[in-house]
């Protein structure tokens, strides 16, 4: 085994140890510390699970997760089927719109829907104006609103994974069922859906875990009895009450354990049940059907409705970004650019911070990701699969857990948190897998003989990587770069625990301005700005090659 590979792996492990393993150990140790003393024990956990309130939050979160998974599944199955199987015009546009929420910051949706569906929001005001209702209807405050908002945010994950499943099924499996006498619906239930379960599960686990990590949506909707929200409130607002703080930390650890456990179980199961490799596909497109008129118009209608709800987010945020004092009116009446002037002139710092932190995180991410991809794909160093596994786990890890553990680990012990560099470092650690997966999956497709040919001609390993591998990986790497940047740019759950005055990013600015009530125009303008930036970056991705996204996030493939 070449020595440079070993030192490379050692460096990567050192980074992981410092940025993942060390802070998480501190978090776990802290969760075991008995409040006010220097003793350790499981008493915090016992107290947590004995307390009916915390038990209720745990239960609530489970229920919410189940409801969100049910909702996304019910709405996602037809959507994925339409997108994967029917040939129709505007497929690209609809796909892009339906997938948009993946890259939109989660809080953008909450704010937009409060403005639109709120008590005196646009919809209620319109209904009252037309005399359809006397008192405002409660569209979103409550568990139904939570389910609605989270489901919309998560629908794309289900649609992506299911449609990948529908596309990848060898058409002959379904044809065999038809020849055997099963038509339409029966074939779908007995053959198509079961064959899709592995890919469905890959998306479903992400959906199910989301309520265990999303503290912000319940908080803003005023329903705080969910694990992550309680944890956030306890840690961020009640840090003087040692008991509540520790309950908060325990809540964070409990959510993290649930997330990691389910994620690992799902992965295991998917890997064992992978059906695809069994039969070779005939066309890359899979089975595509020309639907009859009723199904065709039905699908159009369905896609238009979903796209419309998604589009509400940028539209509503745009309306309030370009107006002031938009209250008790269905649509704004006073148009202005003041909000943008304010954020661009008075606080350009936030924008600068966002770009700076995400940019530095990106550089870390690319360097680390390329090296890690190389070690994982091209070397057989012992433990490289474990490295891959730990990095992938960060996908399931709640952002709040990263934030809290960094706060605990880099304040007293290693005082990194006093310098702004903690912000990009935390973003980098949080979004670790995003670039790596892209690099990884393109690397897997790169024929090793191309590299070997270069080495045989007398070029060293490093130069071979630089001159041969990197150019061939370029597409995947570029998509990874943009994707990583988008995800770092909208990060809030980790950053909110670590920022100090002057280090605010755009998402934090949005959150803070929203708190100031009547100033939601500024928050909306910032959110709108973020959406525009994200959208432009997304366009760049689809130009480079949208297929890579699917390949990297497709089920079953590590």
């Amino acid at each position, binding site marked *: 085994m070449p020595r440079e590979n070993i030192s490379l792996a050692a460096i990567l492990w050192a980074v992981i140890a410092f940025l993942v393993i060390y802070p998480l150990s501190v978090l776990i140790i802290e969760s075991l510390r008995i409040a006010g003393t220097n003793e350790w024990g499981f008493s915090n956990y016992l107290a947590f699970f004995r307390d009916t309130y915390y038990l209720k939050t745990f239960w609530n979160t489970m229920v919410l997760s189940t409801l969100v998974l049910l909702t996304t599944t019910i709405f996602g199955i037809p959507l994925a089927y339409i997108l994967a199987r029917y040939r129709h015009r505007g497929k690209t546009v609809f796909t892009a719109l339906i997938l948009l929420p993946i890259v939109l910051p989660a809080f953008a949706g909450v704010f937009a829907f409060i403005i639109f569906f709120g008590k005196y929001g646009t919809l209620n005001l319109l209904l009252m104006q037309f005399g359809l209702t006397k008192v405002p209807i409660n569209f979103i405050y409550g568990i139904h609103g939570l389910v609605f908002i989270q489901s919309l945010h998560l629908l794309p994950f289900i649609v992506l994974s299911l449609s990948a499943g529908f596309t990848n099924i*060898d058409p*002959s*499996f379904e*044809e*065999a*069922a*038809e*020849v*055997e*006498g*099963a*038509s339409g619906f*029966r074939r779908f239930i*007995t*053959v198509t859906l*079961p*064959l899709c*379960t592995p890919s469905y599960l890959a998306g479903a686990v992400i959906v199910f875990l989301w309520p265990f990590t999303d503290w912000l949506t319940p908080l803003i909707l005023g329903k705080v009895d969910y694990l992550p929200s309680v944890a956030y409130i306890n840690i961020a607002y009640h840090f003087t009450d040692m008991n509540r703080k520790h309950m908060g930390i325990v809540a964070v650890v409990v959510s993290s354990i649930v997330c990691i456990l389910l994620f690992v179980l799902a992965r295991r199961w998917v890997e064992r*049940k992978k*059906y695809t490799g*069994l*039969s*070779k596909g005939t066309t890359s497109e899979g089975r595509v059907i020309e639907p009859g008129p009723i199904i065709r118009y039905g699908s159009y209608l369905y896609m238009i409705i979903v796209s419309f709800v998604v589009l509400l987010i940028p539209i509503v945020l745009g309306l309030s970004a370009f107006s002031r004092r938009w209250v008790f009116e269905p649509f704004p009446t006073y148009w202005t650019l003041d909000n943008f002037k304010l954020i661009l002139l008075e606080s350009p710092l936030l924008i600068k911070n966002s770009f700076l932190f995400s940019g530095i995180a990106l550089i870390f991410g690319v360097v680390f990701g390329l090296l890690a991809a190389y070690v994982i794909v091209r070397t057989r160093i012992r433990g490289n699969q474990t490295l891959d596994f730990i990095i992938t786990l960060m996908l399931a890890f709640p952002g709040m857990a990263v934030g809290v553990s960094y706060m605990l680990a880099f304040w007293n012990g290693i005082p990194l948190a006093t310098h702004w560099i903690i912000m990009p470092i935390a973003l980098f650690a949080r979004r670790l897998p995003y670039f790596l997966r892209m690099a990884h999956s393109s690397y897997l497709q790169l024929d090793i003989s191309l590299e070997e040919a270069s080495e045989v001609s007398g070029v060293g390993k490093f130069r071979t990587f630089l001159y041969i591998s990197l150019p061939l990986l370029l597409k995947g790497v570029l998509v990874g770069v943009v994707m990583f940047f988008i995800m770092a740019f909208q990060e809030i759950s980790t950053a909110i625990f670590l920022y100090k005055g002057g280090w605010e990013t755009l998402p934090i600015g949005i959150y803070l301005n929203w708190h100031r009530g009547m100033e939601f125009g500024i928050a909306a303008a910032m959110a709108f700005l973020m959406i525009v930036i994200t959208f432009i970056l997304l366009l760049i991705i689809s130009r480079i090659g949208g297929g890579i996204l699917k390949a990297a996030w497709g089920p079953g493939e590590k």
Partner: protein
Amino acid sequence: MAFIEIRNLVKRYGKVVAVNNIDLNVEKGEMLTLLGPSGCGKTTTLRCIAGLEKPQAGEIIIDGRSLLAEGFVQPSERGIGMVFQNYAVWPHMKVLKNVAYGLKLQKIPKHKIRERALQVLDMVGLGGLEERYPAQLSGGQQQRVALARALVRNPKVLLLDEPLSNLDAKLREKMRFEIKSLVRRMGMTSVYVTHDQAEAMVISDRIVVMDSGNVVQTGTAQDIYQMPANRFVADFIGTMNFMSGEIISVEAETNSAYVKTEFNDKLLCKTTDGTNLKQGDQVFASIRPEDVEISPDRPETSGNLVAGTIAHKAYLGNFLFFFVTVKGITIRVQVPHYVPLEEGADIYLSLNPEKCMVLV
């Protein structure tokens, strides 16, 4: 009336004509093979019979029932058994469930279903494996599951699309005979698709040779080997020497013609009955390697005798292949392995006029 009748079948994919207006008849109990190179439209034809493709024109009648002209009949309504090229054995169901799938859709008591499925599994040699998942089976066993699934409902028609192409050579040869005897025993009418001429010759009662969506020739294996309809068929089935030339004269009463080739002014060849060849046509005088006689000395026989040199000798176990150069043209000759001739020897070739044929 034939059991399966296909008339004027046309299937296009955009501009590509996959099946170009073909007619086919399959008699009851017959095993018919569609043979041709990859992309010639065999699978498409088969899929049209199964109802997995909607042809643009034409009619398919099975056992007197129209499947196209009086409204498209869905594949699930056709009562056909089909073996797919890639088996298409459902990986999420155990072997027994795979086989019983079609029976469950009919109103048959549960124990009867099991009984029948086990019986067919026994027939294909998979007894005892019914509780396995397909991933726990070898390629050959999966193939048998696919076969059992296609046979279990006792369908009127069995369709097989290159069922053996994914197996290794030894197993392939064994399965040919098994499939043939099984299908014959069950008395099924079947259409078999392959691109392997040896397979087609072993397994079929009749062969239909296809090229670019057209039927080029239909007949028994012997007919097609001995009297190929054109150069394409002759080239595809077996090995053939093609010597380009021009018709000098046609002898209609003896079904023969004289051809002027590059090495011989007057080669006597057979023609088909009622040929419309005429003087001046560009043709190929053709003869199979095993029909060429080779001798070191000038033989007594007259007619179609040419002198050449052995350029290359290839040993193929049970026989020898000589590549003989005759005035710059290479003619392949197949002889038993003991013929004592070496490279560089000057020899004579006799192109037996009874075996030499004119092809276009």
